[in-house]
């Protein structure tokens, strides 16, 4: 115990040891900020922007990190220094140290300097707010209306006549000839938030309060994200998948999504089940009698990589499992278990598999 006490008397140095932990954290943060390594750390790394809004954010955030880092170094050093230099020594004479009650000059100094820092930070902030929020929508922008639901995303392209769900396709935006995508954000029920970190900061979807955001991805690929405002039981599995396609691929995708469901001659057994069970109350399949709007549009279900807003891969087994019991994949989702027997389930899955 004595040894521990003496060790603790040299606490100043010891405290320094454990404060190394934040230094590790900042190093990782800095590493995360270095671009080439960044996507490898995570597909949703905010320090790996691929679109102008995310880029603007990165630049101002590095500035803020620099300023706050400098403040930290200065104040931390003073703290460590004072704890070491002014500790009570073992050979202390027992008298109280000189009592210093204050100093106007010192107070002025450490008021003025922080105020100046605040001014600098504020100006940088205000500029980027305007850069992102006060942007006029150019004529060639792709317009998307995103409607948040518990627990899936509805996407409409009003000018292009497309309605789909959960997987958003946008064209890549060339630096010299930008084609951004402007997304109007609405909600059908509670609050949600659209967050794809590599493309832009998050913006909320709030009922009766339309919002909008924009992205102009500079590279093709798949960008991940998820709902970032607690919206109920399955908030955690309301995932976002943004496919940035080449212009040609995007146009092709649009063409395909515009088509009604492929009609395969006579109505299959699966289609009959679909249209006589409650499925059509919630789901739409363009070109058939199914015209429900509560759940995702299924016209081109097979064009998607995932089902249930990203909760599972779009395979026949998963599809069947989902229809049998949604709670098995996404407990608390609003799709009820349809109580179908095995035969009906197989037929239904086979029908859905034709919806390319």
């Amino acid at each position: 115990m004595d040894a521990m006490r003496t060790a603790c008397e040299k606490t100043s140095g010891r405290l320094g040891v454990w404060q190394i932990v934040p230094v590790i954290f900042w190093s990782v943060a800095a590493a995360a900020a270095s671009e080439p390594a960044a996507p490898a750390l995570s597909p949703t790394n905010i320090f790996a922007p691929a679109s102008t809004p995310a880029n603007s954010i990165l630049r101002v955030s590095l500035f803020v990190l620099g300023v706050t880092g400098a403040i930290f170094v200065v104040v931390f050093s003073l703290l460590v220094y004072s704890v070491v230099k002014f500790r009570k020594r073992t050979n202390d004479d027992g008298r109280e140290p000189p009592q210093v009650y204050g100093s106007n000059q010192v107070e002025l100094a450490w008021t003025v300097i922080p105020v100046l820092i605040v001014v600098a930070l504020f100006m940088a902030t205000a500029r980027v707010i305007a850069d992102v929020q006060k942007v006029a929508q150019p004529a060639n922008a792709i317009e998307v209306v995103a409607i948040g639901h518990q627990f899936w995303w509805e996407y409409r392209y009003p000018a292009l006549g497309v309605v789909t769900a959960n997987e958003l396709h946008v064209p890549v935006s060339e630096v010299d000839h930008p084609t951004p995508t402007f997304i109007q954000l609405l909600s059908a029920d509670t609050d949600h938030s659209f967050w794809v970190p590599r493309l832009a900061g998050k913006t909320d979807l709030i009922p009766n309060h339309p919002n909008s955001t924009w992205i102009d991805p500079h590279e093709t690929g798949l960008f991940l994200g998820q709902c970032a405002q607690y919206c109920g039981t399955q908030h955690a599995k309301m995932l976002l998948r943004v496919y940035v396609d080449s212009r040609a691929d995007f146009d092709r995708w649009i063409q395909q999504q515009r088509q009604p469901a492929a009609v395969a001659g006579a109505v299959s057994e699966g289609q009959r089940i679909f249209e006589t069970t409650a499925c059509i109350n919630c789901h739409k399949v363009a070109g058939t009698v199914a015209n429900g709007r509560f759940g995702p549009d299924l016209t081109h279900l097979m064009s998607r990589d995932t089902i249930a807003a990203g909760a599972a891969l779009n395979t026949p087994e998963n599809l069947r499992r989902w229809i049998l019991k949604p709670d098995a994949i996404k407990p608390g989702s609003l799709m009820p278990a349809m109580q179908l027997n095995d035969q009906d389930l197989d037929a239904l899955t086979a029908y859905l598999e034709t919806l390319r």
Partner: protein
Amino acid sequence: MSTDAIALPGTESAERPFVDGLHAWVTTVDHKRLGILYIVYALIFLVVGGIEATIMRIQLIRANNDFVSPQVFNRLFTLHGTTMIFFVAMPMVFGFANYLIPLMIGARDMAFPRLNAFSFWLTAFGGFLLYFSMIGANGLYGAGNAPDVGWFAYAPLTARTFSVGHSTDFWTLSLLISGFGSIGTAINILTTVLCMRCPGMSLGKMPLLPWLNLVMSGMVILAVSPLTAAQVMLMIDRYLGGHFFDTQAGGSAVIWMHFFWIFGHPEVYVLVIPAFAFMSEIIPVFSRKAIFGYPVMVGATIAIGFISMSVWAHHMFTVGMGANANTFFALSTMAVGVPTGIKIFNWLATMWGGKILFKTPMLFAIAFLFQFLIAGLTGIMLSCVPFDWQLTASYFVVAHFHYVIVGGILFGIFAAFYYWYPKMTGRMYNETLGRWHFWLFLIGFHLTFDFMHIPGLLGMPRRIYTYEAGRGWDIWNLIVTVGAVFQAVGTLVFVFNLVWSYFRGKIAGSDPWDAWTLEWSTSSPPPDYNFAVIPEVKSRRPLWDLKHPNDPDWKYE
């Protein structure tokens, strides 16, 4: 006043001492007993809230875990936040204020002792009501239980359509009731500080703890009331068919956010200002120097009080308020950092040139300075609106506010516990156990909350019961969970120390720390009437004047 106070020495109630003792505690209006009731109540709920946190951390230790269901997880984070804010931090703060303020200003009790007791029992009942929801809230479709709408209960998730059953009502009512208790205590503190100071103690000669609690009380009065109003509106919506937050009828979900955060932001300053008060009492004593810049400390706190009422919408930068509103709230939020920073510098200057003694209260105080500095800096990052668009609603902001509340406020509360334990119980706590608590908790705190920033930077939102593999979040979540274990063990050591020292601690005497404010002039624990003769003071450190008659403070103030 308890009847024990006037019992003659040597006589005891012969028949039922336990029942009489219990009765004395239940019916007490004595500020010291009520203070202890608040503190013990808060300690119990600290353990409860900690268990909730530990279960959540176990669920999040790896991707796609199924330790608890999403429904249970959502109730856990709702209860954890609500409990920690309203039934741990607030009662803790009120408990210490209640105990210390009359002693520090030379008064015999608070201004309104019966209101004091009433406020405590309202708060206590509120906590009971919240937890009763676990068994009492069963509504339709079995979808009733503990509330699961998050501790800020955004509309329209709280509407009858989306929150069936009564769980949300238990949230609303428990906070409504304890809110009245909070307002009552705030009125009491404010009146006590303004009206009950001993002769010679002008406001400029009052120790910083009563000063800061005065500012805190003013903030409670102005900030808890909007929450009360919003909750009444929510009940009107849910039960009288009102449309305050009914977006289908043209109502606004955003207005709930405004009303909630007009409460919610000042609330966190309500919690941290008393921690500042503890620091302002402890750091001088263990540096053996007067606080540096007393008038500036008062002025900065008042400035914080005012400015903090104007920053609330920094919780709403992603809601779509428009560029102008975002810009304004960025400025006000950055501005509030200035007086806060000034306070850190003044504490540093107090230590500078002193003779620092590393007793347990001072260990926690030094850690507070370090951690509050970091918390403030991550706060500055969040005030930069575009950066906030990435960081908010992610684990970065969860790390930030836990850094403030645990790294700042809780460490400050631990410091206060150790500093005033001798006064409250008459015995010294065990210093070795205190250090074990400190180091275990410090390690755990940093493991958890330093590394928690990283998943936020890598895109992990908050309030998710599980997450996909392949996002790069797994290792960080694992480290965060490990830290929780250290904190739990540290807390157990702490509680053990409190209990063990109560029975076996060394007798403390009235002034074990050689301190300078009036509470150290009474016995430990103080008699029911606090002071046999109401003292008269001439400076901010009356005991320094007595101990240094050739060099009293009033020559220099």
